[in-house]
């Protein structure tokens, strides 16, 4: 049972690697200043797709409101057994190392499970990861979330209903958005927190 869950999680990493790999293709950079990310450079840099949902407290969140900051967007679900907790663990580590510079960063998680991610489960998840107040966690109905998944080109195989199997396969790359609102860099699911620490000042300065 557990092996099956883990292997699906690893499959998610594989998907992420493929997506990031494609995004990184496009030849060497002609702009060394912008190529200076620890994450893989997004080519071409495009404006971040729309992202407007409610967080787990019911507050509306619009990614446009974070212009001027570095923004990381990740797609996860709370009862994910393997990849998502590690992503959030690494984000927690990155925030701890950023110290005061963490104020230049906004982390946004978008649910990949419209049934399992509820205000209650998200509250518990954020507390367990010591991320309460440090990360927006956006939830919604399947049509609302599916719109975001499609806009961000994230592959999600959501559960068929509330009682469906508890594994949600999803691609797990993390998007790095610069202060001007462009997707500037991409991180694989197994990124190192040091990559974020390195990139946040650069993303926030764009």
């Amino acid at each position, binding site marked *: 049972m*557990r092996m099956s869950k*883990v*292997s699906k999680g*690893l*499959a998610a*990493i*594989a998907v992420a690697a493929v997506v990031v790999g494609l995004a990184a293709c496009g030849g060497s950079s002609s702009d060394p200043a912008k190529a200076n990310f620890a994450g893989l450079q997004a080519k071409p840099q495009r404006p971040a797709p729309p992202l407007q949902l409610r967080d787990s407290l019911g507050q509306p969140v619009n990614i446009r409101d974070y212009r001027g900051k570095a923004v990381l967007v990740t797609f996860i679900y709370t009862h994910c*057994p*393997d990849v998502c*907790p*590690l992503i959030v*663990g*690494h984000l*927690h*580590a*990155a925030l*701890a*190392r950023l110290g005061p510079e963490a104020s230049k960063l906004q982390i946004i998680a978008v649910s990949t499970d419209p049934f399992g991610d509820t205000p209650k489960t998200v509250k518990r*998840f954020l*507390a*367990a*990861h*010591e991320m309460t107040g440090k990360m927006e966690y956006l939830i919604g109905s399947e049509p609302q979330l599916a719109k975001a998944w499609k806009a961000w080109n994230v592959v999600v195989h959501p559960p068929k209903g509330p009682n469906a199997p508890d594994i949600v396969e999803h691609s797990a790359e993390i998007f790095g958005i610069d202060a001007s609102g462009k997707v500037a860099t991409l991180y694989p699911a*197994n990124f*190192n*927190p*040091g990559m974020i620490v390195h990139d946040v000042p650069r993303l926030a300065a764009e």
Partner: protein
Amino acid sequence: MAAVVAAELLSGSGGGTARAAPPLPRQTLVPPRVTIADLRGRPAAINFWASWCDPCRKEAPGLAALAGSLRGHARLVGVDWSDNATGAQRFIRQYRWRFPNLRDANGASGDAYGIRGLPTTFILNANGRIADVLSGPQNAAAIRRALLHVG
């Protein structure tokens, strides 16, 4: 893919050129504070875990049993990685862990060891070098076997 990840985990540590174990975090959850220098002279197992990690819960009772059975032949040290401190303390109480546990609050030790998932157990030889890496939840017998192998 699983094989690839396992190979990546082992690539920097196995074989005759085992790398030196990176420093352990300083913050202590269960004393005494332990350093790599303290561990030299005997084999040791360093287990990275977190309270939010379900497979770590599965492994936890076995680690408590292992710690009680080592009798000085080897050491076991837990490292709580990028975790909620309160949750970590509760976890330690719940599983009655008495062996030394350190807190890697900013994940720096985990990075230095190159963890790719939790739980991960690093088996150190008596020279403080990483001789083996056990990925995923282990039982006491598996860790004891790995310790005997390097001892």
